């Protein structure tokens, strides 16, 4: 059975329908890349998965447990939403690190407040994760002392600290200088080797093609094309996908 099952998600802001009947599923250990132009609903979809937006209709199921059901208000209480968020992690485009905490403290803050272990356990977890993202020498630095790429890697470690079942990335390299995107993408690729289930909204077509197991192309709030990267990139069926991929290539 699929780890993540998204069914018929619909979301409107006022009169604008941003997501129209989105459905897909994801197996454990798979990496899903979501591509598409701005305003196609990619980010809103990711925000729905993290309950930063509540879908108007549809269900989100993780490991057989329905976390949210637009028709069932008991899944919509603040406390239920807070608990269910823990199934997902989210790495933001702008990192959103906590400026008053050191890199290590950023990673350990949530496990500490949620009492996910003894202080010693949490500390060693934090150090291990910082090592995993290659920042063992930056534990005591504050976010403003780190480069964008380093900040984003701390943000990844912070999201991993609660061992979410699905880790989501919202354009994780879009706010970075081109020379810094590589270090972040390498960390994400490293997570794939550890069988982390991930959803990555990205404009990095090469990355999507090489790392993803499945690619979704979104346009105007619907899934225009979905499939393994070879098919979506080499042999797209929809005219919209063809036009988008052509546009993305011809930029250079």
């Amino acid at each position, binding site marked *: 059975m699929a780890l993540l099952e998204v069914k018929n998600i619909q979301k409107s802001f006022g009169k604008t329908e941003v997501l129209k009947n989105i459905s897909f599923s994801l197996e454990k250990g798979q990496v899903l890349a979501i591509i598409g132009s701005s305003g196609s609903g990619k980010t809103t979809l990711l925000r729905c998965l993290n309950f*930063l937006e509540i879908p108007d209709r549809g269900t989100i199921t993780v490991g057989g447990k329905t976390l949210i059901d637009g028709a069932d208000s008991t899944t919509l209480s603040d406390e239920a939403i807070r608990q269910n968020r823990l199934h997902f992690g989210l790495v933001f485009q702008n990192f959103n690190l906590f400026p*008053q905490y050191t890199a290590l403290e950023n990673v350990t*803050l949530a496990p500490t407040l949620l009492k996910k272990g003894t202080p010693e356990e949490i500390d060693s977890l934090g150090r291990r994760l910082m090592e995993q993202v290659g920042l063992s020498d930056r534990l005591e630095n504050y976010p403003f002392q780190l480069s964008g790429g380093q900040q984003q890697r701390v943000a990844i470690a912070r999201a991993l600290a609660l061992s979410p079942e699905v880790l989501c990335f919202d354009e994780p390299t879009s706010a970075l200088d081109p020379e810094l995107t590589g270090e972040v993408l390498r960390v994400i690729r490293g997570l794939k080797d550890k069988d982390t289930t991930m959803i990555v909204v990205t404009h990095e077509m090469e990355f999507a093609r090489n790392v993803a197991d499945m690619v979704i192309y979104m346009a105007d709030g619907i899934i225009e094309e979905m499939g393994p990267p070879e098919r979506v990139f080499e042999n797209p069926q929809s005219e919209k996908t063809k036009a988008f991929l052509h546009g993305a290539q011809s930029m250079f």
Partner: protein
Amino acid sequence: MTFLEVTAFLFDGFLISLLIFGVTLLCAVPLGLPIAFCSMSRIKAIKAISKVIVWIVRGIPLMLQIFIIYYVPGLLFDTPIFSQLDRYFFIHYSIKDAGRIIAVLIAFSINYACYFSEIYRGGIESISKGQYEAGYVLGLTKPQIFRHIVLKQVIQRIVPPMSNEIITLIKDTALANCIIVCEIIKQAKELAATKAMVWPLFYTGVFYLVFVGFLTILLGRVEKKLSYFRS
């Protein structure tokens, strides 16, 4: 009167100024917080009420507010509480002006709480939505996010405007002499009236300057201590 005697006489008044300053801060700093939260409330009625209160308190002179607090209980309910308190404290504890000082403290606390609430509100609203969202996706509760993520950033941002208000407060204490509280300027005016000495009135400025100098250094240190991070 010698210079020393004048200094001692004025210093008695300055202690009253400091008392008004200290107690007002102690009351207004926490009282500003619920007012700030009310003015950001999603419930429209609460928001409207607190906006109107802040508008009134910031909109009329503090001196007038002192008069209102001091005289209105007597005029409306025929019970001049504050002059009764004056008498009570004088008879039982031989403390002068206690009722008047309490009236001043009430007026000052409300007034400064409203100013502080606007500074708090500005500080809280200036924190990016991303900070809250980062807390939410980590499964933190709203109180945890406020206490552990937002609060310190807010404090860092409000220290400079708060410093301004705090420095204004010590000078505003002079307004207490409108209901004849013996703060330092009232003391100096007393000397002018009874001993025909005008220079002590100008000399009071030295007291304020010394204290403001001390405050500036102290608040500067607080600001520096909080500058270890950038948000």
